[in-house]
């Protein structure tokens, strides 16, 4: 196993006891735990460098600005964007997707236009497009998925010349399905459409290279990749930035303000009105540096090992129904499942008594669950600090659940 004692020690919360048992944290698709490096980066920032960024002349402001802008470069390199200003700091994936809905969809779309998204999208990659369509009169078309959650854009029949925007998750938060973004991107651009990718479940687990993917927008959250909550990124391809309106208006984003008119600063300032989340950006950069040290390829390899192990165990159990891709290689480290005649909430409650944290519910994908024909699923999701021992404790907890509930 790749997970060393040291890796586990890097995450202070893992030494916590839950109901008298060792914490087995398997809810990483919801949020990950934070390594000491991230906690210390935030603390050091506040203890040593706190000041408002940009346009401050004094030492602290210069330091804080430097740290904030260095964080941007760290994020740029992490997803291999071409320019630092292509990284816009937001509150998270939801905020990033609303950003695109507001500054692109609602501004540019017209009645004859079409927005495409898939059936398995998280509500945050679905509701903003519904609202944008309502406001502009644009149409929504849904991309069907196959049994494993894959979208085949070539099967889509609609008035192709009118497709203006395609929204798709890089990896599903339920199935884990890793879409072929390159192919979808090519398909979108051949039709003159832009592609926005919800990368919340991809960036923390697999190598993401926005240049190679060829997408126009790429959204992700800090807290799902070992960073703090309340910070996220929207990658906007440089070529598009000029034509986009600002997301919010106020301080920090202007060039010149009169009483009746104002002009905007250049990107990224243009897109980051108000005092930014400096601690968040610094914490997220620390998370990137931790992931770089571990190696994102190693994170992936590690999660695949755990996936294989749990999949094999689940396959032996006729009562367990697993959703999504059959091959582990097609999914990120997340498995949604159900146990016959046990409601996922009850399963999660019993597991909690054993210190095991899993998620149960519709995971903000009500349309997908409707398609599956179940109101809810149980979901286990991994990160670098999980072990086979964690899975054994999970399986034992599931046995207990059957004893209690059946």
């Amino acid at each position, binding site marked *: 196993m790749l997970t060393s004692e040291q890796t586990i020690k890097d995450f202070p919360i893992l030494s916590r006891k839950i*109901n008298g048992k060792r914490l087995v944290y398997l809810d990483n698709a919801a949020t990950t735990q934070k390594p000491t490096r991230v906690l210390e980066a935030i603390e050091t920032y506040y203890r040593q460098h706190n000041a408002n960024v940009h346009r401050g002349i004094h030492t602290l402001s210069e330091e804080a600005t430097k740290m904030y802008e260095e964080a941007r470069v760290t994020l740029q390199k992490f997803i291999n964007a071409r320019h630092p200003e292509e990284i816009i700091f937001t509150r998270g994936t939801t905020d990033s997707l609303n950003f695109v809905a507001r500054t692109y969809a609602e501004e540019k779309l017209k009645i004859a236009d079409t927005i495409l998204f898939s059936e398995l999208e998280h509500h945050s990659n679905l509701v903003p497009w519904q609202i944008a369509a309502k406001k502009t009169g644009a149409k929504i078309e849904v991309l069907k998925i196959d049994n494993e959650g894959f979208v085949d854009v070539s099967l889509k029949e609609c008035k192709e010349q009118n497709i203006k925007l395609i929204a798709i998750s890089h990896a599903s938060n339920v199935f884990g399905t890793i879409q072929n973004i390159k192919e979808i991107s090519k398909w979108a651009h051949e039709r003159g459409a832009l592609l926005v990718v919800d990368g919340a479940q991809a960036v923390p687990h697999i190598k993401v290279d926005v240049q190679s993917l060829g997408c126009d927008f790429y959204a992700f959250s800090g807290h799902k990749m070992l960073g703090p909550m309340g910070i996220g990124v929207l990658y906007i391809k440089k070529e598009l930035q000029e034509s986009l309106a600002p997301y919010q208006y106020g301080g920090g984003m202007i060039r010149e303000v009169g009483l009746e008119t104002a002009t905007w600063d250049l990107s990224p300032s243009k897109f980051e009105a108000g005092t930014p989340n400096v601690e968040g950006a610094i914490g997220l950069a620390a998370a990137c540096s931790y992931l770089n040290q571990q190696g994102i390829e190693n994170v992936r390899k590690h999660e695949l090992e755990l996936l294989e192990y749990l999949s094999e165990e689940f396959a032996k159990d006729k009562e367990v129904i697993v959703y999504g891709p059959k091959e582990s290689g097609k999914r990120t480290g997340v498995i949604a499942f159900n146990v016959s005649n046990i*409601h*996922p*909430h*009850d399963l999660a*409650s*019993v597991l*909690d*008594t054993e210190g095991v944290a899993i998620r*149960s*519910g*519709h995971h903000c994908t*009500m349309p997908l*669950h409707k398609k599956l024909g179940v*109101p*809810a699923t149980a979901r286990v999701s991994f990160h670098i600090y999980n072990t086979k021992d964690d899975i054994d404790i999970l399986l034992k907890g599931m046995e*207990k659940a059957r004893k*209690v*509930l059946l």
Partner: protein
Amino acid sequence: MTDTLYREELMEHYKHPQNWGRLTNKSGSVSEVNPLCGDEITVDVLVEEDVLKDISFTAHGCAISIASASIFFDKVKGKKLEDIKSLQKKDLLDQINPNLTLSRIKCATLGFNALSRLMLEIEARGTPKEKGFYV
């Protein structure tokens, strides 16, 4: 907490819910969902002379939501509407488990909320004599 959360009385109600099914002779029905998990409950009632003569329900839900509905509906069946209205959510929760977590409280009160809504609807329709509503 499982030992208390899934104690025998509750599990008995979950495995064999009381008043399960649909009423053919009914004064009204209501469906309620828990948006957190998509759990659903459908409740039918028969009201005669300000008394809840009969009640039944069907549901897709977890053990807590089904057992709580079963226990609560058993308790209110045959009672005067006036008395049912005075029942507090807290009393039901205390009976299920006083230490329920926030998310599980939503499960435990699914049936309670459904019946409360149905009672308001029935009340809004007016008294039986005026509207000729009650069977």
